[in-house]
């Protein structure tokens, strides 16, 4: 088979079959080829150190400024006669769940002071738990019967849909807290504790709770069926599943300042059952800074990385001073270093 050779043009010249030249196809695109010289190495590590250490100090001190009061109350709030039988206590409707606690404010807490409830050993991130909800139903009344993922809390015995369905809603936290200092009641503001996008777009204003907690097994709070879901802020906050088995959720806000050494009287309604799975309940009062709540780890991590980076830069300089390598020196080529074999 003879391939079509040089096709003779009418002028009699043979055409070249060389492909058209382009910088892209010949891999000759203009490029920058940075070289990692000792100068650049030292500059890079010094820069990291110089940037990270101040950031670390700033975040560390911001976290140190945050004042936090944590109080575990689930064990102490069981009355003495039920100490050995906490399950009986928590599941009975006849026992008195009121519990009075005293918290001392260690340092001045400038408002707003945020109130959180903290749960421990509660796996809100379990796959079957996370699945057990119906976002469609929460959004609009028309999708009321969309309860497929919500089993076992999907429908009542007479097949009427439960709104909101699913285990996440069913296990809604229902302890309540009342605060007073020097016999004056502190107002707990429930405004803006949930994400605005949740309130406006994910929980419908035409959806009302229906048949909620109507079965024999009550998982948590009951809901007022005359308030639409978009205003049930506790439910909205709860429905944002936490990432870890230890988590805090925003309960409310105290707008006023709390002075140092104030004694806050807390009236807790100890309704929520964490005793059957060995969970813990804690009440947290905390201020915030520009970086958020109290966590010195970010600051310490920045300081560590910045410090290690500076250390490396210094070490590199020292080693380079004692064993310098001139750049582009051909005596370091492998055939000059060991001429026996390349």
């Amino acid at each position: 088979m003879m391939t079509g050779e040089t096709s003779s043009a009418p002028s009699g010249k043979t055409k070249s079959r060389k492909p058209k030249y382009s910088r892209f196809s010949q891999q000759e695109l203009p490029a920058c080829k940075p070289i990692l010289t000792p100068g650049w190495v030292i500059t890079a590590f010094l820069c990291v150190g110089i940037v990270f250490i101040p950031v670390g100090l700033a975040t560390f001190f911001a976290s140190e400024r945050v004042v936090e009061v944590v109080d575990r109350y689930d064990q102490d709030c069981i009355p003495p006669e039920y100490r050995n039988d906490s399950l009986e206590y928590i599941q009975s409707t006849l026992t008195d769940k009121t519990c009075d606690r005293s918290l001392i404010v260690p340092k001045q807490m400038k408002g707003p002071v945020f109130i959180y409830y903290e749960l421990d050993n509660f796996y809100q991130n379990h796959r079957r738990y996370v699945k057990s909800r119906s976002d469609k139903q929460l959004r609009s009344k028309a999708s009321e019967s969309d309860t497929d993922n919500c089993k076992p809390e999907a429908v009542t015995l007479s097949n009427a849909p439960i709104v909101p369905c699913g285990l996440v809603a069913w296990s809604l936290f229902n302890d309540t807290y009342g605060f007073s200092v020097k016999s004056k009641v502190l107002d707990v503001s429930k405004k803006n504790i949930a994400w605005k996008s949740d309130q406006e777009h994910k929980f419908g204003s035409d959806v009302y709770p229906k048949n909620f907690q109507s079965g024999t097994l009550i998982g948590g709070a009951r809901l007022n069926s005359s308030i639409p879901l978009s205003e049930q802020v506790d439910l909205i906050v709860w429905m944002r599943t936490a990432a870890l088995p230890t988590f805090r959720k925003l309960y409310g806000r105290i707008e006023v300042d709390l002075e140092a050494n104030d004694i806050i009287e807390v009236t807790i309604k100890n309704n929520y059952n964490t005793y059957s799975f060995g969970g813990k309940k804690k009440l947290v009062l905390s201020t915030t800074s520009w970086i958020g709540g109290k966590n010195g780890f970010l600051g310490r991590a920045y300081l560590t990385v910045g410090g290690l980076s500076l250390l490396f830069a210094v070490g590199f300089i020292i080693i380079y001073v004692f064993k310098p390598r001139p750049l582009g020196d051909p005596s370091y080529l492998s055939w000059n270093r060991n001429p026996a074999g390349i």
Partner: protein
Amino acid sequence: METAINIGFACSLLRQGMKQICITEMNSDTVAKDAKQAVKENILMQLTNASQMVKLEKDPHAAFALIIDGKTLTYTLEDDMKHQFLALAVDCASVICCRVSPKQKALVTRLVKEGTGKTTLAIGDGANDVGMIQEADIGVGISGVEGMQAVMASDFSISQFRFLEKLLVVHGHWCYKRIAQMICYFFYKNIAFGLTLFYFEAFTAFSGQSVYDDWYMLLFNVILTSLPVISLGVFEQDVSSEVCLQFPALYQQGPKNLFFDWYRILGWMGNGLYSSLIILFLNIIILYDQAFRAEGQTADMAAVGTTMFSCIICAVNCQIALTMSHFTWIQHLFVWGSIATWYLFLLLYGMISPIYSGNAYQILVEALGPAPLYWCTILLVTVSCNLPYLAHISFQRCFNPMDHHIIQEIKYYKKDVEDQQMWRRERSKARQETKIGLTVRVDAKIRQLRGKLNKKNATLTFHSCIAPPS
């Protein structure tokens, strides 16, 4: 056979001064039963004599050429003789087999491949070369006068034989490095990503809940980290093509497997393991249970997952930027564009209705974007993941440099222009000594002439000593 020898001289496979070993079958008129046996014994004797001669040679510049034709090859390729034939052929500088059938070409290639265990390359341009091309580890076909059969059967095809040099020394060298780096990086990024999912399971009572949104995981390997790797694998050049041609010794980095040995593979995997630990644990501890914003909200699973994923994307793309040494506009676009694409995606995903976006609805605009903690975390994790690698390559480059590092520096500081003698000297040292080829023929001629000149000088001085002064 004479034609073959003449062609050998023409293309510098043979030269004056090479000892030629011709293996031929003796003419046997008898059609007796043991004629074949006699011929075989004769050939065996020729092989043995030649092997002896090669072994006893003392001159280091001596070269041998083995010339054999197709008829003889049928005998030598039989199982009882082929090992001796191979042993002799390997000792010779060049071997010419003439009048060979296509089947024999393939058999010779197989013999060399299996007998020496080395990588073989076969190059041919006609349909009769197809067997040989397919038998060899690497088959190169030349497209041209004899048609396209060789091209269709080959692994690589070129249009002229002289392009073979560029194919090996430039493209082979680049390809080896590109593929090695690409594979190592690919393992690294997927380990860094996948292990975080695995570790998180320990926090979810091993129920199988993933911390990332489904769309994040889908897009990770498709758009967000694939384009930079492709640009690394397609465009990466450690040295330019002219330097590759000038320094053939750089090609040896491939056969010596300096870039894909176990040390490097395990190193990259270890880097991935380290990165995954840093990403997960830093994020979990930083976003633990306290508020992450000044407005007091705590981080739910969507916030933690999005923050962690942002950290992975930034860390992994910065890592590839550190790996690359040749930055065209394409690499810049892909690497930084991947990070930008992630944020663009997050923005757009957050804008579509929560029916599809679920908890990622407006997460960047509302929750994470305005939170300084989010950006601080990304910066910390990205730098922590990349700092050990940067330290490692700094040390290696400054105190234990490889050849291409030195040459890159020479080109960068334009020392090849300043000190052209040094450049020429190093170039000549970077060529391996061979026994055949044009340069060796020229060198041999020079040696011969020099030898003659020395003898002439010696006789002249002798005569001038003897001749009585006039």
